[in-house]
């Protein structure tokens, strides 16, 4: 037993916490300290109780609870054979930037910057043109109209976000009398409640997380959808935007820059060197592991902009969406292909995802993007 006792000394508990952290059990210094405390409080000779106690400290959900046993076994068996645990689980997908061609979508994004200097398109003028452009499929916009559409869209997106914030204010007018403050205010009046104090519910600020597909199949749309994200980010305070194809990258900070061309240039640099396919499930998993806890809460709307063409496993996509659904208020999936008449969401990925999605709507033209207002 002396060997076992030695294994469970303070150093090895600390080592174990670190090992657990690397293998998907997020825990901080605080947990390590508690784990050490726990190790002191129980009889170390009892391997089972030791494991159970550590599990109570380090795990904090059913999933982590299940994961713990594997990690525990792996660690202690490894540390018995060798001096330290070097059989770390393979974590293939984390931050493994694969070299490859730049996705064409983003090339297109930066290419459109150069057209900035061109004179404004003549094909559009007046209100009727504006209405026509709202309905035209984003993939079919004539090159001449691009800039005009861009201007209209920015203007409309701004109006939409203003309407949204205003709507929230009006809705929160319902109020209750606050007896406590009423009494306090009326003490100088001998306690007669002359001036009433009210209380209302604090308005919950809506948060948005935007998950934008920039894989090859989304090429013709991502140009505008990125602008859409930019507009949302500009007028909503709490928006986090991510780009994904086979990897995920957060672009919130880039979109915060004041002018759009700068932001787009930054984007194409950041996403450079990505492979072209789409792995929605894997991307969502990376997001969940790294950012999910920070960003998702029950006033968050999670918006996915993707066509649902996926080379990953549908089961994983469904599981990750379920996980997001549990934490977020709603999942909105905007699919550009839904605008096509012959399209039906029967691809493996899309049909696996649909049961977990609250709103499934098209995103093929400006009008459909503006309809997002209804779902928020």
């Amino acid at each position: 037993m002396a060997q076992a006792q030695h294994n469970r000394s303070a150093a090895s508990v600390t080592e174990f916490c670190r090992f657990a952290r690397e293998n998907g059990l997020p825990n901080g210094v605080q947990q390590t300290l508690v784990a050490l405390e726990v190790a002191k409080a129980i009889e170390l000779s009892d391997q089972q109780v030791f494991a159970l106690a550590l599990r109570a400290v380090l795990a904090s959900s059913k999933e982590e609870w299940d994961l713990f046993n594997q990690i525990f076994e792996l660690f202690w068996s490894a540390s018995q054979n060798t001096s330290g645990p070097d059989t770390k689980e393979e974590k293939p997908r984390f931050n493994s930037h694969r070299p490859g061609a730049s996705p064409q979508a983003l090339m297109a994004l930066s290419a459109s910057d150069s057209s900035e200097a061109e004179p404004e398109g003549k094909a559009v003028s007046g209100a009727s043109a504006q209405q026509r452009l709202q309905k035209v499929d984003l993939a079919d916009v004539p090159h001449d109209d691009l800039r005009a559409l861009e201007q209209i869209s920015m203007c409309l997106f701004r109006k939409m976000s203003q309407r949204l914030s205003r709507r929230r204010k009006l809705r929160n007018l319902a109020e209750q009398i606050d007896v406590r403050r009423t009494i306090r205010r009326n003490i100088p009046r001998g306690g007669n409640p002359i001036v009433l104090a009210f209380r209302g519910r604090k308005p919950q600020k809506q948060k948005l997380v935007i998950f934008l597909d920039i894989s090859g199949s989304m090429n013709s749309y991502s140009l505008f959808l990125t602008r859409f994200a930019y507009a949302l980010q500009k007028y909503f305070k709490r928006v986090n935007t991510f780009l994904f194809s086979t990897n995920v990258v957060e672009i919130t900070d880039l979109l915060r820059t004041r002018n759009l061309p700068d932001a787009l240039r930054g984007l194409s640099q950041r996403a450079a060197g990505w492979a072209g396919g789409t792995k929605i499930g894997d991307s969502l998993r990376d997001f969940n592991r790294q950012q999910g806890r920070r960003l998702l809460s029950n006033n968050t709307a999670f918006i996915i902009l993707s066509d649902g063409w996926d080379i990953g496993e549908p089961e994983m996509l469904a599981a990750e969406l379920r996980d997001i659904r549990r934490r977020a208020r709603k999942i909105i999936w905007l699919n550009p292909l839904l605008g096509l008449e012959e399209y039906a969401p029967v691809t493996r990925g899309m049909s696996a995802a649909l049961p977990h999605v609250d709103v499934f709507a098209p995103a093929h033209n400006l009008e459909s993007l503006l309809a997002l207002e209804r779902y928020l």
Partner: protein
Amino acid sequence: MPTSPTIPEDKQINGVDDLILRFEQLGYVTDRALATAIYLVVKLGKPLLIEGHAGLGKTEVPKVLAAMLGTRLIRLQCYEGLDVNSAVYEWNYQKQLLAIKIEEKIEQTVEEKEKHIFSKEFLLERPLLQSILAEDASPVLLIDEIDRADEAFEAFLLELLSDFQITVPEMGTIKAKHVPYVILTSNRTRELSDALKRRCLYHWIDYPSYEKEMKIVRARLPGIEEQLGGQVVRFVQAARQLDLAKPPGVTETLDCAQSAMTLGKHRLDVQAVEETIGCVAKSMEDGAKLRAAGIEKMLS
């Protein structure tokens, strides 16, 4: 830094096995995992978060713990819209208004009047304040179904759980003399905030094995015939395998067994199940599913 809860001399617990034994004496059958967690609650004074499906005895844990330690159980039931007024404290407004009226004629400055109506006499203690104010020993504080309260309340709890003190603006800060043992339960209808989870020990309570459930039935229904008990447990365990909207917990097992006993059954047959089906299936659809799965097959 709050001190650990104080345990009376004669209630000292010697290890996890001792705790299992004592819980069993009080009619609660527990496994080593849960016992270890509870042991750490008592030893380290850490809050414990118990998650699991409904009807598996989550709420029972603090009750038994309080009975074992011989202390008071203070319960806070969470619900949507729970606010500080109903969780921590509130002023007795009616009484304050009356007092102001009565004292109208008395020569007192406004400050004196204010001091009087915001004294302890007018304070309504809600569960969280009660748990802090305990005079003689550490109480057990049960915060039930925390997942139903909103995030703002969770944040407030965080503060309480780290400092064990409450500030009443009119009276000042009240610090706990005896830090309570805190047990939180959640049905997992929503994910709790990370910060709260990190502060707590965690236990996931799962459906019991056949042996454990039998032990529970024997402990809670001492008069039950072995054959009947076995049949009920087997039946409910089979029902859990079906995809019911609300899978039956241990509570349902006990209800079903008790109903069968009350009806004078000696063994569970199709007719007996039909008569007591409401104990296991809690909706029309679930009842239909049970019947479709073949009650006879589930009993064999």
